[in-house]
């Protein structure tokens, strides 16, 4: 526990000093919220009782998850491998699980901070509220976060160097960020496209968060839960078993 605490403290400091994640995981979601807020204000979404921002709140919370899980986490781990920092760790008693857990926790912290900054701003200026159960919303948020971060761990755990990790991360990050509904609302996309992007675990997560935040009768909770659960178990397993020090 002492090892975990010290590593977490130091790695978090380094991550903040680097500023990338502060910008992409904290400031950017806020910026998107403000832009959407000015564009749509408190207008209600077409033919529904809640506002457009109510509907998008869940998606806004995933921008930070996306940035951490698909850019931050894999790039840091791959960079440590390329710079032979992991090799230095290899000749110490530390386990790969401990190192991955530390990095994982850092991006959980970013996701939590992002939600904690989004919520008051959205509430204060555009009166956004969670219509459904808080517990269900937080549950679906957590599931989305854990599954996305596990993808990041897998990429970071096995990518040879920073460049490979960066290519894989970009291939995953940008389509998910743009098309899964994290930045552009899922609803404005053509139906054909909606069908294709439903396969992203991220899309499933966002849909589930939307349903729970709006308090809609959840039609098929089991599909998203199964998709995200499988992704989490698979990716975490691969990350730990195939972990490369060098």
């Amino acid at each position, binding site marked *: 526990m002492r090892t975990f605490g010290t590593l977490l403290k130091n790695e978090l400091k380094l991550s903040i000093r680097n500023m990338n994640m502060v910008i992409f995981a904290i400031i950017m979601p806020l910026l998107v919220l403000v832009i959407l807020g000015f564009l749509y204000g408190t207008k209600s979404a077409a033919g529904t009782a809640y506002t457009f921002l109510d509907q998008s709140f869940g998606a806004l919370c995933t921008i930070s998850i996306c940035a951490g899980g698909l850019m931050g986490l894999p790039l840091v781990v791959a960079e440590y491998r390329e710079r032979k920092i992991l090799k*230095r760790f290899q000749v*110490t008693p530390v386990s790969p699980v401990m190192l991955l857990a530390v990095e994982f926790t850092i991006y959980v912290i970013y996701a939590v901070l992002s939600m904690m900054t989004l919520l008051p701003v959205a509430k204060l200026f555009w009166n956004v509220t969670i219509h459904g159960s808080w517990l269900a919303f937080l549950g679906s948020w957590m599931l989305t976060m854990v599954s996305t971060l596990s993808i990041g761990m897998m990429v970071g755990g096995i990518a040879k160097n920073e460049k490979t990790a960066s290519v894989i991360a970009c291939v995953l990050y940008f389509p998910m960020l743009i098309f899964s509904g994290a930045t552009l609302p899922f609803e404005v996309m053509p139906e054909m496209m909606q069908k294709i992007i439903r396969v992203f675990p991220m899309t499933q997560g966002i849909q589930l968060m939307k349903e729970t935040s709006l308090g809609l009768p959840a039609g098929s909770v089991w599909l998203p839960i199964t998709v995200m659960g499988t992704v989490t178990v698979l990716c975490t397993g691969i990350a730990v078993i195939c972990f490369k020090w060098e």
Partner: protein
Amino acid sequence: MQEALKVEQLSKSYGNLLVLDSLNLCVRQNTVFGLLGANGAGKTTAIECILGTKKADRGSISVLGRDPHKDRRNLFQEVGVQFQEGDYQPEIKVSELCEETACLYKSPSDWKSLCKQFGIKDKVNRTVKSLSGGERQRLFIVLALIPDPKLVFLDELTTGLDAKARRDVWKILENLKSKGLTIFLTSHFMDEVEALCDEICILKNGRAVFCGTATQAKELCSCEKFEDAYLAITGEEGIE
């Protein structure tokens, strides 16, 4: 006396290139052992195979009685390592790097007093990348000693240090040896090897061409200076 390290018939090749050829090493506890050889002779590969960061093709390795592959986490509680090209997180400070290393061990040494011993106490709040080459080298020796190890590996330990700093490092190492530490080092400075090492092994193209003490090497070649003996041994074929 018990062995801290025993290597038998260690071989390793990269593709068709044979880097280590049936290497046998034995390091007794509480001694200083020097692995010597020109650049590319296989020193670093030997260390990496012994530590388990590279997999040997053949041979058996026992470090403090343990298998470095199977028993990595227990072994490295007692073994400190300084790699030739140690690296660190880009923005990390000296204090953070020491703290981060110390937290990995059950009973680490006090890194602040180690930094003081090695003359970098006033640098602990600086970033590692802002240190001079010599200061960084001393920091990496500090990191290798943080575990309070029984055995320490130092790969080119004093490269980049000035004459005074080298003497200081020797003194500290001799002091640690008197407290029971076993030291495995590589070096290109023959004065250092002669001053520190109880036993040496000279590698040439992956084969051990001499094993013994510095005095034996000098006698073998009838040289007065150890450096001349070293050059004679590595320059000629077939001296065993």
